[in-house]
């Protein structure tokens, strides 16, 4: 047997079969796209929440407002403590004058009022930029407590909890996506199995004839199995295309909106690894569906 030519015949037969039953194939691909699209939507939400977490995390700064009575030795001691924890990437001292200047820049309308005050009400501070890994570190909370209890510290400003909650939300969205992926992949597999089974029923006579004239069994089943795989693959591609369109639409909406809160959202599409994962789900669903459909019980003449 000329195997490459036989394989080419098998592939062309699979595509011809799908084209002949194009309505059913389209319906199947659409249903698979919906299933995989839902999984992809969860991944997309997780991905974008992750990007928000990263944005916030990258801008995470612990601000230690110093008492007016604090000395240079106190500041040096605080800096030493921070260095020892290895949680801090960079540190910066902010003087009361610099704090007032910043206030005037950020809140332009209130700047003259601040300048008209008799003294400078803004305290000196130490700004500590956290290392990216520090947000999830167990050592962070004890460190913040240590800073707060320091004699020179008036107040420590950093809300680690909401960043952690956001982190939790990302993990939950991912986990939900994965659990959903298992169920929806099985659902897509059953959809494919039923479509392939219907196709087999439509071609029952053809299959019987092929058997009688001596067509090898793998060549009888092959086109149906391959048909399932192709449907799964096309379904996954369609799902990715739909998700991309949705992402672009959201991106356009965010770009057009004047809502400052949405500024933290740098809407982005799924990374290549997630796209490959979704295509894999499609292929697995197609393979499972095809295998379920071409069991001997269904192909018996």
């Amino acid at each position, binding site marked *: *047997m*000329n*195997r*490459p*030519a*036989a394989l080419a*015949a*098998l592939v062309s*037969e699979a595509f011809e079969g799908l084209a*002949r039953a194009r309505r059913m194939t389209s319906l199947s691909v659409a249903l698979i796209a919906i299933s995989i699209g839902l999984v992809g939507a969860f991944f997309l939400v997780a991905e974008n929440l992750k990007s928000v977490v990263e944005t916030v995390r990258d801008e995470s700064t612990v601000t230690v407002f110093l008492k007016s009575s604090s000395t240079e030795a106190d500041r040096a001691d605080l800096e030493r403590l921070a260095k020892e924890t290895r949680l801090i990437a960079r540190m910066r001292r902010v003087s009361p004058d610099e704090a007032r200047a910043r206030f005037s820049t950020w809140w332009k309308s209130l700047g003259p009022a601040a300048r008209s005050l008799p003294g400078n009400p803004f305290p000196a501070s130490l700004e500590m930029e956290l290392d990216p890994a520090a947000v999830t570190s167990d050592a962070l909370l004890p460190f913040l407590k240590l800073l707060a209890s320091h004699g020179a510290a008036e107040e420590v400003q950093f809300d680690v909890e909401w960043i952690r909650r956001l982190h939790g939300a990302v993990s939950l969205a991912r986990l939900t996506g994965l659990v959903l992926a298992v169920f929806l992949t099985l659902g897509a597999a059953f959809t494919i199995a039923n479509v392939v089974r219907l196709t087999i029923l439509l071609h029952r*006579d*053809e299959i*019987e*004839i*092929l*058997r*009688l*004239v*001596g*067509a*090898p*069994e793998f*060549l009888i089943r092959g086109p149906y199995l391959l048909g399932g795989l192709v449907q799964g693959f096309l379904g996954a591609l369609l799902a990715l295309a739909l998700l991309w369109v949705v992402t672009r639409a959201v991106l356009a909406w965010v770009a057009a909106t004047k809502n400052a809160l949405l500024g933290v959202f740098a809407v982005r599409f799924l990374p290549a690894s997630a796209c490959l994962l979704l295509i894999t789900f499609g292929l697995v669903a197609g393979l499972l569906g095809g295998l379920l459909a071409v069991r001997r019980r269904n192909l018996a003449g």
Partner: protein
Amino acid sequence: MIEFYRVSKEYQGRRVLRDVTFKTKKGEFLFLTGPSGAGKSTLLKLIFHAEKPTEGQIIVNGMNVSGMPASRVPALRRSMGIVFQDYKLLPARTVLDNVTYVQKFLGVPAAERRRRAYQTLRLVELHHRLAALPEELSGGEQQRVALARALVNEPVLLVADEPTGNLDHRLAGEVMKLLQDISVRGTTVLVATHDQELVKAAGRRCLTLDRGRVVEGLVEAALPSQAATKRADSGRVERAP
């Protein structure tokens, strides 16, 4: 070519074939006759392993069919040509596709498939209908396409189950002539039919099934009165009809 040794077949306790023994020679043309329900189709199905015998041994083209694993059945069927009463053509495929369908999956190049199909269809005088669909052909033409499909692999054995059952007298004669021509070329041809006129007209060796047993005889064309009876190879003798 075909060897049956004490073959029996039962369906749910009902014995359809009993102790059937016969042997065919290379290039022989023979009939299998008997009334409807006599077991003709069952005997043919045993030959191409669509059924398994309850007892006995069957050798086809040198292969022991009785205990043949399912994986070897396609090769057995490809070693022979099979023609059915209802033609069993693929309705959505052209004449060319019908004749070459299995060859395509066996990796025979397209040009070679087309050459073989053309030659075989020429033999059955349908080489001008390559692109036609079965529904565009008459019953006789459809049966000739089925015959071409059975012959395209140049089988050493051709089995035909009531090949003229759906044809009028003239077309039946044409198909029978074709089958006899094929046997002249060295292919063993076994034709199952209940049409005694056809059997008598051909004057060939005839296996008659009677209540599950094979009765063997030779029918001479134009001299039906001289129909002889003789013992089968196994020595099992019964009178010819």
